[in-house]
């Protein structure tokens, strides 16, 4: 799916890119820049001096102390660095400033290309109520719910009765599961509105909430899209991300074990049509809920690269980061929907520096580290033996991705890869993943967003206890 390798590095519009991020995604972006012949500038906080993204970038600058607000979210420091190093563009990665329309506007004002969609679309998709309305207008099916933020309990109650219980209360500015409450009865609604609003106000400085019908056992299916600046848009198929704990994805796969080619085309075409309607440009992800009758509903759109993009890259052979850069340079897509190829099956496990029993963060010194390898294994990481995982940032330290001809083989490949992955000194979620991979429902593809809840109830945490020291180096 990458048709641009004809482009010589010296003819590229971008000579140098600043990566406004850290961790594995910063490394991931550097790898592609190296392949494209583009120089990279890493920015980092003072505790991230030994992080791999700093080592592998061509140039680097420390932009502030450990707290993100003073470093990775420090827009003046990032723009100042971009000017000093004379970069052509900024790649925001995911998290931090990736979905800040304000940052995108500042970049534009400073004549630095923001590698992402236009600022107005980032803002629109950041407001979940507005996004819902815009996508419904663009022809995507949405769940019955409130067209405006809820202002009173009485209004909420009237609406909830209309759409029928259970309902879900969500934050308009939401994300990551914060400011969300599931409500089964009318009596619970008042309190749920209040707590969701308080939580949303604390997390996003915006307490507005809205109500939507709550689906009991939906699947989380998302469509990866690529759109250029000339109105052309295609999709790269779907990702199945139903394995979540507290709305945080743990394990993702592509393709979904339940999507028929017909349904894939339907969902893909719907996402593409909506993106064209919006005037979207760059890579993006349209997230859907799929109910037990295979009806799909728009949930939200992520206007950035996603953590789980790698599974799509494996099965389509596309480099999504490369396409983001090309599109930002003003190149046309250069391929059509008919060029889409989906080969085999890919799975990703997120390895977090967490206690697999309690999910408590486990930062600290990595005393031993072995990367799995062999056929069909990809690991995106920024850690190494002797690295100290700082307590200030996200706990994800690696993504292990396996690719094979069938789902069954990809699972077997993932199991042996995780068994050979040795991380000593800190606790990781590897033992949890090994258990999930052995679960009969998971193996049968019978999964929904409530999978983890049942899984943890069934297995408890004691089974994980004995296996927290998985894998051993021989010889």
């Amino acid at each position, binding site marked *: 799916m990458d048709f641009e390798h004809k482009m010589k590095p010296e003819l590229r519009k971008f000579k140098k890119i600043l990566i406004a991020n850290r961790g594995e995604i910063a490394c991931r972006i550097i790898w592609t820049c190296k392949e494209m012949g583009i120089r990279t500038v*890493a920015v980092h906080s*003072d505790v991230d001096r030994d992080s*791999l993204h*700093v*080592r*592998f*970038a*061509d*140039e*680097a*600058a*420390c*932009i*502030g*102390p450990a707290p993100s607000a003073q*470093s990775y979210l420090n827009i*003046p*420091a990032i*723009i*100042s*660095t971009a*000017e*000093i*190093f004379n970069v052509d563009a900024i790649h925001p990665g995911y998290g931090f400033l990736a979905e800040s329309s304000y940052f995108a506007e500042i970049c534009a004002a*400073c004549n630095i290309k923001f590698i992402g969609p236009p600022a107005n679309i980032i803002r629109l998709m950041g407001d979940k109520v507005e996004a819902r309305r815009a996508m419904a207008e663009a022809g995507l099916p949405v769940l019955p719910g409130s067209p405006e933020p809820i202002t009173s309990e009485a209004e909420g109650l009237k609406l909830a009765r209309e759409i029928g219980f259970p309902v879900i209360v969500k934050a308009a500015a939401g994300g990551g599961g914060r400011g969300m409450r599931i409500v089964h009865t009318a009596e619970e609604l008042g309190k749920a509105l209040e707590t969701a609003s308080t939580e949303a106000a604390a997390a996003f400085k915006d307490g507005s909430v809205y109500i939507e019908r709550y689906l009991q056992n939906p699947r989380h299916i998302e469509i990866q899209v690529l759109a250029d600046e000339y109105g052309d848009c295609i999709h790269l198929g779907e990702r199945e991300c139903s394995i979540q704990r507290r709305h945080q994805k743990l394990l993702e796969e592509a393709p979904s074990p339940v999507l028929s080619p017909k349904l894939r085309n339907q969902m893909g075409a719907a996402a593409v049509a909506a993106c064209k309607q919006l005037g979207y440009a760059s890579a993006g992800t349209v997230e859907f809920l799929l109910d037990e009758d295979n009806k799909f509903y728009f949930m939200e759109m992520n206007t950035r690269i996603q953590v789980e993009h790698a599974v799509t890259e494996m099965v389509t052979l596309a480099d999504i980061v490369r396409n983001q850069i090309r599109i930002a340079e003003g190149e046309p897509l250069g391929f059509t929907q008919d060029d889409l190829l989906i080969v085999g099956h890919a799975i990703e496990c997120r390895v977090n520096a967490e206690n697999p029993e309690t999910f408590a963060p486990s930062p600290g010194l990595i005393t031993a*580290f072995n*990367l799995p390898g062999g056929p069909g294994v990809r690991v995106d990481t920024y850690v*190494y*033996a*002797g690295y100290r995982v700082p307590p200030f940032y996200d706990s994800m330290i690696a993504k292990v991705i396996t690719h094979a001809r069938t789902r069954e083989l990809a699972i077997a490949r993932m199991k042996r890869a995780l068994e050979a992955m040795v991380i000593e000194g800190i606790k990781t979620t590897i033992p949890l993943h090994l258990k999930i991979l052995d679960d009969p429902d998971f193996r049968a593809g019978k999964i929904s967003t409530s999978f983890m809840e049942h899984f943890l109830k069934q297995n408890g945490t004691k089974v994980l206890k004995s296996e927290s020291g998985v894998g051993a180096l021989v010889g």
Partner: protein
Amino acid sequence: MSDPGSQKAELEITAESEQVASSSEPAPARRRRSRSLAAESSVNMDELRELVQLINENDFNEFELEREGFRVRFRRGMEISEVARRELTAGGSATEPSPTLAPSHPGAKAQTEASEDQDLYIIPSPIVGTFYRAASPNSDSFVKIGSIVEADSVVCIIEAMKLMNEIQAETAGEVAKIYVENGQPVEYGQPLFGIRK
């Protein structure tokens, strides 16, 4: 890395018949060149003494000579472990990235210099930006080596996003060191001045 005060020197002489474990050159290439082992392998000690003296006089840290039949390597002022580590990483060890890959960091030089000035109060840069010693290209520098400063004295300007940020000394004393040159980019935490209290 290099410590001129250290008297530790490492001398390695390798006759052809011995294995050189840490050599960066592949063994077969060396073997091909060994023809008359008996004629060359005896090292003339006088020659060697002369060589060492020559190296010492020229203040070399590292010297390597390879001739048919023998190889001499001379090295001083380096911790053995440091040497070993560098050779390990150069050999493609997965445990640590090679130092040669480290990117150009604007503050690296200043950091190294300042780390030697333990007795001085270091004024670090509070932001990323461009360092200026004067308010404008035509005006005098705020401070020079030997200038006496108060805590609220302006010592330099750091420009970030077209804004001129005045940086104060934060301590009283005498300017003993200036680690950055006028017009150079500086990063957060990078040493700018050393003040003797």
